């Protein structure tokens, strides 16, 4: 068989298996944990029945139906998979009667709008600075950059967000305190609204860029140092190729892991910038997941997680494709040793 197709088929099979394993975890966890959290949630809902009996009854009915608590486990599992297969992620409790999928898609644009540009920017900056540090190895520049990268890579985005917020929105009132746009406004495509949106955008955007840059830079720095020490570099160097060209070679060879890293990273984007969105009260999917977790909205937790894991596995698959296209050894069906 064509080695390329064979490789891709094997990876696809693996990813599907992983997806199934994840679905099993999602299915099993609420049912397997002692004290059955689902049951206690149902109990809680019944207790709240006084306040709004009709709504609570509806929620209760829906939950029973979706989780099928009264049926044997294997039937529950089949129904669970069947619903997922039909594209139904269930109904939220906290936002009853809205569907989970519907909720996610109304929160998603904010997360994507924030994360895609921020991730790409930090990726580009991180790679450039990382390569610079490697090129300037054993100089003051490298020592400074490396220390900065190490510290940044261990700085949680959300804490950075808190610091930025305190500095530029509380102490100096340059930027607004929270939200994606000023309260009272409705999203339109007008110039004033876009300006207002950008004004809210700056701090979360930079907190993600700065927070993510260190990790990319560290990875790139190590890769470039490794490549610079390789035999092919000293060979082309001795042939007189200019440093600029050699750096191009090294950069090209160091990029593969970084590209795949980026793809995987973009794969998790559906989850939003969980805690950063929380700090800024930014209405993205991260915020939604937080609401789901804090209100124990099981259908919403399950639904969002299934979506996140799907895009993540899809990203993994794309990475495999990239590898298969770029790595000549896969193209030619190289057999080791």
């Amino acid at each position, binding site marked *: 068989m064509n080695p390329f197709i064979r490789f891709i088929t094997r990876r696809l099979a*693996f*990813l599907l*298996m*992983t997806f199934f*394993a*994840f679905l099993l*975890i*999602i299915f099993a*966890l*609420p049912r397997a*944990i002692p*004290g059955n*959290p689902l049951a*206690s949630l149902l109990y809680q809902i019944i207790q709240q029945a006084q306040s709004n009996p009709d709504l609570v009854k509806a929620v209760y009915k829906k939950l029973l139906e979706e989780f099928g608590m009264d049926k044997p486990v294997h039937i529950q599992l089949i129904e669970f998979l069947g619903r997922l297969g039909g594209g139904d992620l269930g109904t939220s409790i906290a936002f009853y009667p809205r569907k989970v999928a519907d909720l996610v898609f109304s929160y998603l644009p904010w997360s994507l709008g924030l994360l895609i540009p921020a991730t790409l920017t930090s990726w580009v900056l991180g790679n450039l600075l990382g390569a610079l540090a490697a090129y300037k190895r*054993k100089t003051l520049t490298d020592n400074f950059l*490396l*220390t900065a990268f*190490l*510290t940044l*890579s*261990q*700085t*949680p985005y*959300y*804490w950075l967000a*808190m*610091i930025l*917020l*305190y500095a530029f*929105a*509380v*102490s100096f009132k340059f930027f607004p*305190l*929270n939200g994606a746009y000023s309260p009272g406004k409705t999203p339109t495509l007008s110039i004033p609204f876009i300006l207002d949106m950008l004004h809210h955008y700056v701090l979360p955007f930079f907190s993600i860029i700065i927070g993510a840059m260190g990790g990319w830079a560290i990875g790139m720095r*190590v890769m470039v*140092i*490794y490549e610079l*020490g390789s035999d092919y570099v000293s060979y082309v160097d001795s042939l007189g190729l200019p440093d600029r060209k050699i750096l191009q070679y090294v950069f090209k060879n160091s990029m593969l892991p970084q590209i795949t890293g980026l793809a995987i990273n973009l794969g*998790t984007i559906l*989850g939003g910038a*969980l*805690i950063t969105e*929380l*700090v800024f009260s930014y209405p993205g999917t991260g915020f939604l997941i*937080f609401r789901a*977790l*804090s209100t*124990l909205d099981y259908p919403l*937790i399950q639904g969002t*997680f299934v979506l*996140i*894991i799907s895009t*993540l*596995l899809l990203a*993994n698959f794309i990475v495999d494709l990239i590898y298969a296209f770029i790595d000549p050894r896969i193209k030619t069906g190289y057999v080791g040793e």
Partner: protein
Amino acid sequence: MIPRIIKDLFKIKKLDISLGIFLGLMLLSLLGSIIYPVDPTSVVGPPERPPSSAYPLGTDNRGRDVLAQLIGGIKNSLYIGVIAALISLGIGVIIGAISGYKGGLTDSSLMLMTDVVLVLPSILIMMLIAAYLKERNPIFVSIIIGVTSWPWVARAVRAQMMSLKAREFVYMSRIAGLRDIKIIIEDLLPNMASYIFMAFVLLMSGAMIAEAGLSMIGLGVTKGISLGIILYWAQLFESVRRGLWWWFVPPGACLVALASSLLLMSTALDEYFSPRLKGG
């Protein structure tokens, strides 16, 4: 060999600095309650006071002492970090070592399992598990972090094991009739020691950050304190917007200092032990 390595290691400035920061904070957390005997959980003064001589790092919204919380928080964060790292390391080393030493079908199936766990994002699994638990003590949190972050250790240990067991000194010990267990202890493990130590250090910093992340979304420990919990409270009660900087800056700074000193430590060790990074 070992004394020489240790002597060499102390010459590395990066290592000295990072070790200094880390041990300093660790000592603060261990001895802190003796030097600064204030109960972090009890109300000691008026709420939301800025730092002063009475409250070096101010008080929180209920009038509890932030410095005392910080001391307790570092201690618990370190505790969770160590336990979680030990759990991951244990699982990773055992799976990796068996996989690498045995090979064959055992290897294939263990690695398949590892790959599955590696692809699933550990933070999601952590969140899932944590969300369904009502009570979460530090041990639980450590276990949750530990059981989700071992796969890369297993892979790395496996690779090391495979290359080491084909080394000639291992053959020399085998044809001297040494028992497998003795070969593993005397020949294989010492040669992986630096690696295992580095993995531990990285796992620990990862675990402390993961703990803080879980806490921030309300899935951290339900009783007691940690750096993440302080941050969580600070976030919950809008400390940033209300300008109560002493409440959220110190715990975050300590977390960053602990985690990045650990990372710096492993970077320094890596540069020392891997020749290609060491060279000019």
